[in-house]
């Protein structure tokens, strides 16, 4: 890949007969918009159906047609799903990036390349397989506009034959890909078959890479984080979705479109949710605030530039105490940055989004299961805490296919928080003498709200972002202001209790640890195994929500050295930890990455070894 240049270690066989089985990565280089996504999905799905732990990552450009795009597929018998630094096999189908793609192969690597280019063997230390793409395509009766797309099936056929994917697995995956439609599946399969037969008859296998059936994917699903988040929202009872398109969040809303039919009211046949495409993110978040005010569950999905535009409104929602849910499927910033590359670079900004003293709630999913769970739970937290909740996903989770356990049905009924209807309001007034929108009678910082439409002469209040007292009256008094801020602070304490707790792997005997969040998870787990082999045992804590909780503090206080790897340039989680812990934290080591690509275990291993070896 031209995206990075990493030193490539020599290839090691993992079976006694010299075979390398289910433990390597390959990469497909094509031009963006050439239709290679179908081919890549079919390869990944075939391997998944063969029971092999697999993951596919799409490294694509911000362009519709023509620029180079790479798809990496990793199989791992040990179940590692992080991106791999080394890619042993390259399908080089894009002449523009070919030279670098070939140069990046390790010694003993494999290059699959169209014969039509007459590229020649520009390296002697790799294995070459040439595919007569044009000749194969000539044998297929396909319209010229489809031909370019179907062409990509030729590498599927060659890969299947060389590395041992049975043709019926490809056929099955193709059918799945086309939702059971035989016609397009057949057309594509013809190209696969012809290429497969060509390879069988003409290519002599010189490499040692093999796929073999396994049983590690039984019962699992393969899904993107955006689809998971969409489903979570649907099952969370979302009512209003307002959005403005932006990569890489768009497919989250597309997912909601796909499943909105599940939200027809069984009693009236009317829709219990609506999707509004706003004119910009300012308007999208404004719609959420309006919907939240009227008691509805409202969400949006966006990315960094959209979050920037939402600052003023989320500050209002925080202060006027209006629930809403905002997904940030993060891409690389600052600015327009790398719109199609992954990043964890929005958490610091989002955590304090809004002018003045604001602390926003952020949930940090690491996999599709959590994207689903946080998808519905975010609404409960928002309603219970009467505040905005941000779900900080990223491009890697959102747009790539991940292996996952099937999602668990919400294990709690919908939590609407402290909402009073007319009857409850009457009861409340009887008990407490009066009701005020910001009157804290429970002492937990969370007050009772009424919804527009409540038929009670005292139910109304005037929401505002300006200073207000307990009765929601306009106030510029310092004592009112401070009292309110103190209550908001108390509320935040209460809300901490609603947030997903960190996931910990802790053993008191270990003195070195890792703290991280989100999609670094696979790389970290693999790196920990690598470190263990070198005698370095680590504890691990994965933060799943901001603000941080006591668990994190305790964890920090019980280690000698803690590494904080994260996928941004400034070490933002590290900064947030420092912000919340005024004590001496010199035993914390920030390991920021932020190169636009999903973290690899090798990178993390090298970083930690560099310190630990000393």
């Amino acid at each position, binding site marked *: 890949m031209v995206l990075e240049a990493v030193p490539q270690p020599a290839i090691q066989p993992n079976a006694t007969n010299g075979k390398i089985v289910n433990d390597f990565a390959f990469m497909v280089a094509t031009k963006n918009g050439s239709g290679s996504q179908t081919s890549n999905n079919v390869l990944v799905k075939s391997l998944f159906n063969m029971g092999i732990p697999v993951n596919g990552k799409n490294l694509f450009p911000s362009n519709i047609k023509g620029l180079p795009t790479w798809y990496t597929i990793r199989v791992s018998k040990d179940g590692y799903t992080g991106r791999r630094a080394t890619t042993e096999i390259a399908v080089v189908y894009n002449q523009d990036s070919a030279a670098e793609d070939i140069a990046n192969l390790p010694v003993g690597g494999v290059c699959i390349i169209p014969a039509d280019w007459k590229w020649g063997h520009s390296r002697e230390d790799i294995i070459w397989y040439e595919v007569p793409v044009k000749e194969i395509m000539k044998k297929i009766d396909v319209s010229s506009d489809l031909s370019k797309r179907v062409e990509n099936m030729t590498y599927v056929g060659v890969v299947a034959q060389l590395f041992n994917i049975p043709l019926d697995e490809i056929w099955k995956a193709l059918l799945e890909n086309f939702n059971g439609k035989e016609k397009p599946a057949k057309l594509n399969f013809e190209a696969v078959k012809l290429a497969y037969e060509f390879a069988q008859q003409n290519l002599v296998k010189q490499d040692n890479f093999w796929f073999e059936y396994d049983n590690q994917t039984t019962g699992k*699903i393969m899904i993107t984080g955006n689809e998971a988040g969409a489903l979570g929202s649907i099952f969370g*009872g979302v009512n209003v979705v307002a959005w403005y398109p932006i990569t890489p969040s768009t497919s989250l809303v597309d997912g909601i479109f796909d499943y909105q039919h599940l939200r027809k009211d069984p*009693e009236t046949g009317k829709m219990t949710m609506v999707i509004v495409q706003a004119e910009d993110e300012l308007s999208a978040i*404004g719609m959420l605030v309006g919907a939240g005010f009227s008691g509805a569950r409202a969400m949006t999905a966006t990315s960094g530039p959209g979050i920037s535009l939402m600052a003023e409104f989320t500050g209002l929602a925080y202060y006027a105490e209006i629930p809403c849910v905002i997904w940030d499927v993060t891409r690389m910033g600052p600015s327009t940055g790398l719109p199609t590359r992954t990043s964890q670079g929005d958490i610091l900004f989002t955590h304090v989004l809004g002018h003045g003293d604001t602390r926003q709630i952020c949930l940090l999913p690491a996999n599709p299961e959590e994207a689903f769970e946080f998808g519905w739970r975010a609404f409960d937290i928002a309603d219970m805490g009467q505040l905005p909740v941000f779900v900080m996903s990223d491009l890697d989770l959102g747009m790539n296919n991940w292996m996952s356990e099937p999602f668990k049905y919400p294990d709690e009924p919908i939590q609407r928080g402290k909402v009073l209807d007319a009857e409850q309001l009457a009861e409340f007034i009887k008990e407490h003498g009066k009701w005020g929108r910001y009157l804290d009678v429970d002492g937990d910082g969370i007050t009772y709200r009424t919804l527009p439409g409540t038929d009670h002469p005292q139910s109304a*209040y*005037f*929401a505002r972002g*300006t200073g207000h007292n307990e009765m929601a009256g306009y106030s510029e008094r310092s004592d009112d202001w401070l009292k309110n801020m103190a209550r908001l602070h108390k509320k935040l304490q209460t809300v901490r209790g609603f947030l997903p707790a960190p996931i910990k792997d802790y053993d008191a005997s270990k003195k070195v640890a890792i703290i991280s969040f989100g999609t670094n998870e696979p790389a970290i787990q693999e790196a920990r195994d690598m470190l263990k082999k070198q005698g370095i045992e680590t504890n691990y804590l994965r933060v799943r929500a901001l603000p941080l909780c006591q668990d994190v503090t305790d964890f920090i206080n019980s280690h000698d050295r803690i590494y904080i790897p994260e996928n941004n340039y400034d070490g933002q989680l590290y900064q947030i930890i420092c912000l919340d812990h005024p004590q001496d934290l010199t035993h914390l080591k920030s390991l920021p990455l932020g190169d636009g690509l999903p973290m690899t275990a090798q990178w993390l291993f090298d970083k930690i070894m560099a310190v630990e070896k000393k």
Partner: protein
Amino acid sequence: MGKSKVNSLGLSREEYKGRPSTLCPGCGHDSISNQIISTTYEMGIEQHKILKMSGIGCSSKTPAYFLGRSHGFNALHGRMPSVVTGALMGNPSMKCIAVSGDGDSGSIGMGQFKHAIRRNIPFVYIIENNGVYGLTKGQFSATSDEGQELKYYGRNELPAIDLALEAIIAGATFVARSFSGDSKQVQSLLQAALRHQGTAVIDIISPCVSFNNDPKSNKSYDYGKAHQISLHDIQVVAQGYVEGKDEIVVAPEAFADGSIVNVEMHDGTTLRLKHLDRNHDPRNRSMAISVLEQSQREQLFITGLIYYEEPRPTLAQLGDVYDGALGTLPEHRVRPSQQTLNDVMAKFK
């Protein structure tokens, strides 16, 4: 006590008021608040079914001063339309009266103003237009007239934006202009607007006594009183109205002879327009546009119902959304079943 007048709900006008106003004494905005109070009182509107919305500005403060029993939201500068859109998607059964300023809608909020109209969000969109930024102490706004002079900022050399014209161009189906000094006209327009099933825009010239009330300024009281050209008198005739039996707000004696245009509204109400100036027919789009262009060109202060059209479906109707508070539906109506989740999961296996 017992003698005080009450409306059809048995409520006094007093009960339609809000908190005491904190605007400058004499501010045009206050008289608009009063017309809102009178109109909703006369119509016997149930306050809990009304949402009061606004942006930021002196004008946007006013929802605190009327309909004390209605939920309200004083949102962000220029962003009221999106908040209204969300609130009415979250509960399409609510009616909404929203107040904005010329800065709020004509500058920072122009985008949201036009897009809410385009979506035909059903609410009364009142612009309290004083040709100046009141709350930030007297800067020019986008509706300040060319040649207008202000104490600190000198002369405005830029052309004014006509928000009524912008509304028509954006696809509004109810567009009116009025003068806060003409309480009768404001009331009848509000009555009609509250019955409209779409965005009803009323651009009300509302003098700022502190920063833009020089008699030379065409947003001043003196100028308005001297120059207002009313296109018609408006009589709002509800469906099933029986002459002589039912009371109507605008006294019938106001209508002497003269030609009449009857505008039939979606809900069966008839707007009886009398005393027509320029033979204006608000159902004629090009006539509406040319009246506004003429008034801009010749600096005429023309008021009345400028444009009316049978409303398009509202956004909630297009989405076939449940007509109530979506957030209060019980769980089984908004969360699909375990079986549904199993079925969806099977597709990803």
